[in-house]
């Protein structure tokens, strides 16, 4: 196996593997600082932060070093390459580069959103010098809040790494951003009247290694060191981007993509990035309700759940074929399994259907050309199917019922008076049931609605179970390609609402506490299609349901 040396540490390379010095060093835990380099973008080698000494091992074992420093991001590592990233020469070059970068940087960290997660701060602390020798006034450049609907540019903080420019040219393809002027007067800017409003625009904020590009949505809301991150999955489409949900004191402040080569890569779209505001909506259902003869009397979880369990059990005994449940594709695998298993246990004839799968247009792929036409190879896809777990719920339903009953069928059967009891799980915060469809359930004697927001059908419900959003629960989502990923609880549900898994855990009479990992093991043993979940812990990047899809998926990601 070919071997290179980084700071005297051997790095093993796979045959045919092309790594640069930064990647090779990272493999053995050595950080080579870099600003302009990003693995998903083209290499420009312009920030000059990653300068290293590079040499070659000759056949006789002697090492010949290049006389000058070279950028690590641009220099390939081969058999026998020797990289020195900790010599005095390298350290001096880093100090010089950082001093240059800070010459015209305003050093307004106390009022900068990026402070705390800023590479200029981190590298200055690790590699920089503690003072500047500049005695002259700094350049002052105008802030540009017109740069996009969701993003703003603090021009004077910019270090001209051009990551954002390359992103709009290479990933989104929309090419709104550019560099104007020359030398130290350079600025990032847009063409007049052409702001960065593409659906991937928010990524430039993440790509910005300093506080130049900021999210208007997050601006001045929180200091980042107060935020706590939970690993989760964006529920807004079936791509299932891995994300971090950042919260403080039970309030979510932002979603950031978490790099996952098996899911979406390093980016996410703005629909997902900013599409979580319903979490804090005033309309959220905050308590359970049972309608009684006197009105909406009971609001206590224990009472509601006991009464509900009793009603379902009685109906199952009396008319076992008159029970139906609609499982939302926004439910986790665990929740679908609990509900489906419980109802089928009570009545083998209970009808289980898949909730409405919202589809909007067609899959939206990037990059696009300037006319908006997609071009190959595809680097990012926003899927038309707007739900996180169609695949997972389908697997559960197929296990319990064989063929999957569509929502429309349940609607028409309910309208025909076929059911006495229907358990509806909503969960799609962007609307899942129309007035028309809701009317079909008027004939149902006992209608149970488990949802997080009001919907057309809510007023007809005998039982309303206030559920939780994706950020409020643990579980598993399976994306379009069969990648099962864990979601983790980040915040508590508002008011007296409860995460769905807890509602179902208690309702179905399970003892102890809900634990997603343990339940995953049980599901893997029960449902052959979900056997891949057997480890319980799916890891940060998730687990693919089967290996053929695995290879297809990784091929897409690499392309």
């Amino acid at each position: 196996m070919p071997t290179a040396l980084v700071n005297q540490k051997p790095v093993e390379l796979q045959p045919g593997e092309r790594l640069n010095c930064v990647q090779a060093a990272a493999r053995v835990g050595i950080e080579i600082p870099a600003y302009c380099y990003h693995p998903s973008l083209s290499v420009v080698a312009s920030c000059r932060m990653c300068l290293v000494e590079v040499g070659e091992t000759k056949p006789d074992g002697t090492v010949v070093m290049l006389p000058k420093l070279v950028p690590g991001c641009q220099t390939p590592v081969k058999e026998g390459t020797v990289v020195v990233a900790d010599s005095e020469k390298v350290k001096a070059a880093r100090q010089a580069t950082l001093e240059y970068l800070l010459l015209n940087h305003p050093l307004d960290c106390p009022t900068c959103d990026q402070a705390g997660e800023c590479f200029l701060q981190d590298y200055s602390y690790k590699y920089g010098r503690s003072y500047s020798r500049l005695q002259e006034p700094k350049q002052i450049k105008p802030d540009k809040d017109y740069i996009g609907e969701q993003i703003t540019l603090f021009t004077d903080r910019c270090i001209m790494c051009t990551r954002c420019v390359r992103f709009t040219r290479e990933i989104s393809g929309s090419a709104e951003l550019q560099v104007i002027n020359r030398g130290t007067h350079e600025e990032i800017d847009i063409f007049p009247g052409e702001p960065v409003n593409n659906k991937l625009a928010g990524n430039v904020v993440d790509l910005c290694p300093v506080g130049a590009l900021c999210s208007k949505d997050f601006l001045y809301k929180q200091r980042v060191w107060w935020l706590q991150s939970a690993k989760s999955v964006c529920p807004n489409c079936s791509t299932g981007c891995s994300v971090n949900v950042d919260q403080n004191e039970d309030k979510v402040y932002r979603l950031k993509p978490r790099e996952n080569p098996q899911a979406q890569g390093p980016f996410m779209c703005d629909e997902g990035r900013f599409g979580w505001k319903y979490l804090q909506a005033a309309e959220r259902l905050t308590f359970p309700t049972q309608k009684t003869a006197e009105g909406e009397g009971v609001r206590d979880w224990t009472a509601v759940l006991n009464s509900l369990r009793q009603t379902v059990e009685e109906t199952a005994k009396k008319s076992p074929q008159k029970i139906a449940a609609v499982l939302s594709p926004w439910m986790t695998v665990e929740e679908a399994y609990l509900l489906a298993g419980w109802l089928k246990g009570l009545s083998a004839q209970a009808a289980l259907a898949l909730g409405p799968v919202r589809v909007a247009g067609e899959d939206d792929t990037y990059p696009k050309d300037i006319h908006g036409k997609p071009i190959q190879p595809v680097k990012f896809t926003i899927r038309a199917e707007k739900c996180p777990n169609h695949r997972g719920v389908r697997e559960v339903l197929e296990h319990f019922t064989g063929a999957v009953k569509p929502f429309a069928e349940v609607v028409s059967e309910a309208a025909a008076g076929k059911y006495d009891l229907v358990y509806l799980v909503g969960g799609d915060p962007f609307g899942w049931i129309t007035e028309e469809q809701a009317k079909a359930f008027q004939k149902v004697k006992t209608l149970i609605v488990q949802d997080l927001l009001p919907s057309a059908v809510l007023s007809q419900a005998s039982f309303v179970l206030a559920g939780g959003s994706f950020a409020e629960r643990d579980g598993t989502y399976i994306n379009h390609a069969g990648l099962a990923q864990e979601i983790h609880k980040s915040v508590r549900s508002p008011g007296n609402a409860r995460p769905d898994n807890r509602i179902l855990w208690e309702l179905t009479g399970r003892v102890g506490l809900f634990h997603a990992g343990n339940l995953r093991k049980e599901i893997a043993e029960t449902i052959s299609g979900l056997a891949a979940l057997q480890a319980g812990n799916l890891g940060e990047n998730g687990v693919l349901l089967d290996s053929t899809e695995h290879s297809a998926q990784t091929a897409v990601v690499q392309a």
Partner: protein
Amino acid sequence: MPQFEPVLLARIHKADSTSLEGYRADGGYRAYQKALGMAPADVTKMVVDSGLRGRGGAGFPCGLKWTFLPKDHPGPIYLAVNADESEPGTFNNRILMEQDPHQLIEGIAIACHAIKSEKAFLYIRYEYGRSYRTLFKAVQECYAAGLLGKNIQGSGVNLDIQLHRGAGAYICGEETGLIESLEGKRAWPRIKPPFPAIEGLFRKPTIVNNVETLCCVTHILDRGVDWFKSMGVKPDPNNPRDPGSYGPKLYCISGHVNRPCCVELPMGVTARELIDVHGGGVWKGRKAKAVVPGGISMGFLSADELDTPLDFAGPGKVGCLGLGTAAVVVVDDQTSMVDVLFNCCRFFAHESCGQCTPCREGTSWMRKILDRIRSGHGKLEDLDLLLEVAGSMGIIPGTTICGLSDGAAWPVKNAIKKFRPEFEDYIREGRRSITPAQELMATH
């Protein structure tokens, strides 16, 4: 010393120096005919043997560059002619293009035959409107006469020349910056490798040559290798890496001389001879204090280094960056070096493309420091700071993509090293010079 008979500039004073007819009457396109009768490899070999080194500044052997092209490349190969002459003090390309355009076109045609290119791009600095119009007319004449186009003179060789007016900056004269600019992009020099000979214009193998280099090619074909090698400086026997400096060279003399001019002389003439004999001496009866040997990015010769021969190796021996474009700018002894250096730094701060951090920030920092010194707020430590900043910039330490920042740092290093007492005196005592800074640069 026998009077040198100019070759490249032989025709510039003739009444019809720009017409095809006039050029033909002086034996024009004879060399191209000869080249068409030769195999491309033989033409290349002739240029390699002549030892012709690029006149654009770096002095890279021209023929050797041509041999870097991939062998038997199936797709197109391009020639890009660098006529973005923007090194301060340099104006020889302009004279060649304005006064003898066919000499250049013939050189381009020969070079294209040698490198098997059917398309040449002539990148002309935007400010050179007259050069553009002259060349445009000359190219049209050639098309009409069947010297350009398809199947030239029945030889089966095709060649198109496209004139491109730059809209750019100093950096467009950098080889890969020029290519980017030709492609319609911002002229940010590319990272190398790949070098343009492997992947250049529109990602095709591309040779970039300077105007004067290609004019020399014409005469090498016409007069032969031995004629070319009869002039200039032979390689230093003690330095195996020195390929020597052969042939005639156009020297531009400007600054504080009585007669600013462009003269053609064999390589290796001294700065003193250029100033005293060809430039008519330093103006107003003064003495030279400092002389720029080849455009301001090459640094300075001090008064006692004026006998340095100006060949490719000469300026390097006295601490300059190189011969550069052989644009000699004279600074008289009444001028403050602080002003001279400030002017240099202002130029590079203005022209840095801004891609690499050290150059973008370093050039403007040096300008700011010198501005402060100039206005009387300097400190002695500033000189060491300037040296340190200059020392951490450029491709020689490895901190930038192109050579602009070396060129920006070199005058600072040279000036402070060679004129340090003057800088210290200025910082301690204040301004003593009388010549305003604006008069320093050649107006061309």
